[in-house]
């Protein structure tokens, strides 16, 4: 009785925490889009808006010592796994205090100390790397679990196949999380593969597969928790497909000739934050006051992070020469 009551309380706490984390991602993303439009940030930006429930639901099922690999659309994963927002923004600004000293930028934000093996500019690039982290855990007998985030498009690339097959053969503690957001660049999932659910691919590897509503953070968390538990108990990998929708263009600036505004608007009705907010209110876990407080905290944190990023110094150009090797120096201009 009290156990189930505790579990309920725990669930309530988790849902509020997840909501706040999603809000943090949403606000960080919205803010940086504005800054990017104002040409404050160099490079390319791939927005995670609309997909927040996946990163947050999955990371909620993880421990701090667990590992994630991320994608080109990686901001949400980094924030959900607990990446420091100030150094995250500083990285997007290309500053010396960025998580990667300004060498990585949006597509390579990373924080190895907390298990974030980095955003990755190569589609599917992080998938075998997560499996390799899981292999290390298995070899050392630690109970760490690794998660590889990837898009629907990544499930067509060769290294995805090699990785899932071998991870299954070796029974590695890894969860493959597919963020099926309807598109790979400009083409729809139905244009790049002929199956109803990407999770069906699990069958080709003798691994369990599951499809969940990627906009429902509780569904995601529960499915992830099951997969993570299996992995932690030595029962091997899982393919977890989370169905969602990409609100923004593939990259900021994408003219999006391939879809209608009506389609986007329809999906906005299923905003993962809105769904969660409604649920919190229905369960009496939040009201205008508490939600307002959450958003205030979130906005403050983001604003402070941006302020830090803006004002922290540019990297010294010569710092471009370091970090190539652990030991060798690279020759400078003569």
């Amino acid at each position, binding site marked *: 009785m009290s156990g189930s009551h505790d579990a309920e309380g725990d669930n309530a706490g988790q849902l509020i925490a997840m909501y706040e984390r999603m809000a943090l991602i949403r606000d960080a993303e919205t803010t940086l889009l504005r800054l990017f439009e104002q040409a404050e940030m160099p490079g390319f930006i791939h927005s995670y808006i609309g997909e927040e429930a996946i990163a947050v639901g999955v990371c909620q099922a993880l421990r701090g010592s667990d590992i994630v690999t991320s994608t080109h659309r990686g901001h949400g994963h980094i924030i959900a796994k607990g990446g420091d927002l100030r150094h995250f923004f500083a990285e997007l600004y290309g500053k010396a205090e960025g998580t990667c000293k300004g060498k990585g930028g949006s597509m390579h934000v990373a924080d190895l100390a907390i298990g974030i093996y980095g955003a990755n500019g190569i589609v599917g690039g992080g998938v075998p790397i997560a499996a390799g982290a899981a292999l290390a855990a298995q070899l050392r007998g630690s109970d760490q679990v690794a998660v590889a985030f990837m898009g629907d498009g990544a499930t067509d690339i060769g290294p995805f196949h090699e990785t899932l097959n071998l991870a299954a053969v070796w029974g590695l503690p890894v969860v493959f999380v597919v963020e099926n957001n309807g598109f790979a660049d400009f*083409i729809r999932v139905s244009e790049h593969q002929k199956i109803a659910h990407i999770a069906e691919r699990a069958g080709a590897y003798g691994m369990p597969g599951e499809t969940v509503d990627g906009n429902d953070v509780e569904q995601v968390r529960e499915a992830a928790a099951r997969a993570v538990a299996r992995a932690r108990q030595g029962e091997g990998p899982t393919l977890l497909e989370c169905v969602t929708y990409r609100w923004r263009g593939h990259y900021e600036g994408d003219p999006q000739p391939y879809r209608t505004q009506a389609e986007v608007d329809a999906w906005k009705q299923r905003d993962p934050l809105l769904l969660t907010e409604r649920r919190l209110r229905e369960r009496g876990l939040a009201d205008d006051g508490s939600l307002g407080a959450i958003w205030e905290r979130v906005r403050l944190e983001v604003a402070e992070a941006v302020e830090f990023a803006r004002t922290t110094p540019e990297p010294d150009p010569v710092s471009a020469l370091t970090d190539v090797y652990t030991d060798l120096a690279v020759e400078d201009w003569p």
Partner: protein
Amino acid sequence: MRLSYSKAITRALEEAMAADAAVFCLGEDVGYGGAYGATQSLRDRFGAARVRDTPISESAIVGFSVGAAMSGMRPVAEIMHMDFIAIGMDQVVNQAAKMRYMFGGKARVPLTIRCGVGGYLNAAAQHSQSLEAWFTHVPGLKVATAATPRDIRAVLRDAIADDNPVIVLEPLSLYEVADDVPETHEVRALGAADIKRRGEDVTIVTWGRTVPECLAAAERLADERIDCEVIDLLSLVPWDEPAVLGSVWRTNNLVVVHQAPRRGGFGAEIAARVTERAFRELDNPVARVCGLDTPVPFAPKLESYVLPGADRIAQAVRRLS
């Protein structure tokens, strides 16, 4: 006609597809106009069968192209950023490049692989590589590039008409540059360099993204009364050795400039070769101005430190004279 670099690509593809039903295009987003717009309107004009969107599958993009080329088609595959060709590497180097030879001359692989080349775009290490050196080292491949709308139109037409696999490098940071492009193009064999600027004191050999940097450096140096000849190779395999040697015999000095890191870059081949052929004629050792030997960093200040620009090129030339 005045065209941007990217529209000049479209024009070349249109011309080639109109002239020969065997030509077709494939790649990621190609049907929707291409990630960087180089194939816009092609699907409308030629239909979805000949302008094909693919999944994210670089091995399949190249491999299907190899099979189609061996069957008499002339595929034009787009690799969005050249960095991604690493996924399809086997099909490029072990299949496309070697089929003809392994099969005793009985296969033909008339395949063009268009590669977007990053760099100078703050796109960081995995979207900024100019990897010509890998492919120039693989017998059986040709490698070409261009830095102006006029040239890319010509190079692409020549590459598509070529009966061998050709890797074409297209610097993405030049896609918006506009220039005059002749109404028509007469197909010819790849291999001729274009002397972009005549000069008597120092020869600068370059290709791709660094062509405008070299020209800018030459302008500055002209003010200092150093008269540079700027040779745009356009084709790396084969490369126009006579044009370069002819120039070096006059100037007795050579600077090779490229975007890719210096160590093991194609500049080393040119330096080694020219030195073999013109050792006594050279007043100085061949100088190389290239990307530094680091991955390409993200931050603008870092990237512009690493990649070669007009300043560094001018400095290197000054050191010779």
